[in-house]
C-alpha cells in the first residue's frame, strides 16, 4: 500500500521518510512554486496553466515515490536541491509535450543540460514553511500524545493555558511544564543535521 507510512528509524536520518500522501500535503506548495519558476524560465516568462502545474506536481511526487520506494537519498545532497532537479525535469518533460511556440531550447536541446532557474524568495519561503510543518510532524511522532496535544492547543491553536488546564483537569503548572518539554524536544529535533542542512543556504 502506498499510503502506509514508511517506518521511521529513531534519530538516524529517516526524518523525511513519510508516505507519498503526507509528502504531497507537506511539500506541494514548494513543488508548485518551483514548477512555476521552471516553466517561466523555459518559456521566456510565460505563465503556466493550473492544469500544467497540477500535472507537474503529480509527476514529481509519483517520481519521488516511484515503485513505492522513497527515492531521496540524503547522502547525495540536500532535499531541496534534489527536489528542484526533479521538478525541473518533470516540467521539461511536460513542456516537450506541450511545445509552446515561444520557448528557449530545453535542457538537452541546447548547450546546457542542467538549466535550472535561480531559487526565488517565494520558493525559499514555501520550502521553509514545509520544513517547519515537517518539524511539527516529527515532534508529534516523538513526544507523548498528551504532551503534543497541550503544545498544539496552546502554541499552535492559541488556546489559553488556563483554559487548557481546566479542560484537561490538570494544573496550570502542568501545562507550562508540558509546553517547556515539547519546546525542548522541538529544539533537539531542529538541531538534527538533516534540518540544519535544509534550513540554511
Amino acid at each position, binding site marked *: 500500500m502506498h499510503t502506509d507510512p514508511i517506518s521511521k528509524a529513531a534519530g538516524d536520518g529517516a526524518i523525511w521518510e513519510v508516505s507519498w500522501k503526507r509528502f*504531497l500535503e507537506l511539500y*506541494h506548495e514548494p513543488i508548485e512554486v518551483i514548477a512555476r519558476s521552471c516553466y517561466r524560465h523555459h518559456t521566456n516568462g510565460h505563465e503556466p496553466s493550473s492544469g500544467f502545474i497540477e500535472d507537474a506536481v503529480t509527476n514529481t511526487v509519483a517520481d519521488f515515490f516511484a*515503485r513505492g520506494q522513497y527515492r531521496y537519498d540524503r547522502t547525495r545532497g540536500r532535499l531541496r536541491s534534489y527536489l528542484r532537479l526533479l521538478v*525541473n*525535469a518533470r516540467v521539461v518533460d511536460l513542456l516537450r509535450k506541450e511545445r509552446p511556440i515561444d520557448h528557449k531550447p530545453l535542457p*538537452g536541446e541546447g548547450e546546457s543540460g542542467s538549466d535550472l532557474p535561480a531559487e526565488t524568495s517565494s520558493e525559499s519561503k514555501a520550502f521553509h514553511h514545509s520544513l*517547519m510543518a515537517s518539524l511539527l510532524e516529527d515532534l508529534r511522532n516523538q513526544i507523548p500524545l498528551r504532551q503534543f496535544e497541550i503544545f*498544539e492547543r496552546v502554541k499552535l491553536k492559541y488556546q489559553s493555558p488556563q483554559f487548557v488546564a481546566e479542560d484537561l483537569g490538570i494544573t496550570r503548572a502542568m501545562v507550562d511544564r508540558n509546553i517547556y518539554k515539547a519546546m525542548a524536544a522541538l*529544539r533537539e529535533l531542529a538541531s538534527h543535521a538533516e534540518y540544519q542542512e535544509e534550513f540554511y543556504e
Partner: protein
Amino acid sequence: MDTIALLKRSDLTPEEDAHLTRELADAYHMDEAAMSSRNVQRIAEKVKARLDMPPIKLPDSTQL
C-alpha cells in the same frame, strides 16, 4: 528574525517567543489547510493512479 536561530535557543525574549510561535502556527495551519484542500486531494488521486500504473519508460531529462 531568523526563526531557525530562535529554535536553537531556550532564552527567548517575549518578542522572539511570539515570533517563533507565530511561524510555527503558520506552518501548522498551512499544513492543516493542505490536508483538507480539494486541490491537494485531486492531485493525490492522480498520483495514486500514476503509482498504481504498471511501470513504463518515461522520458527523463536528468540523470536522477
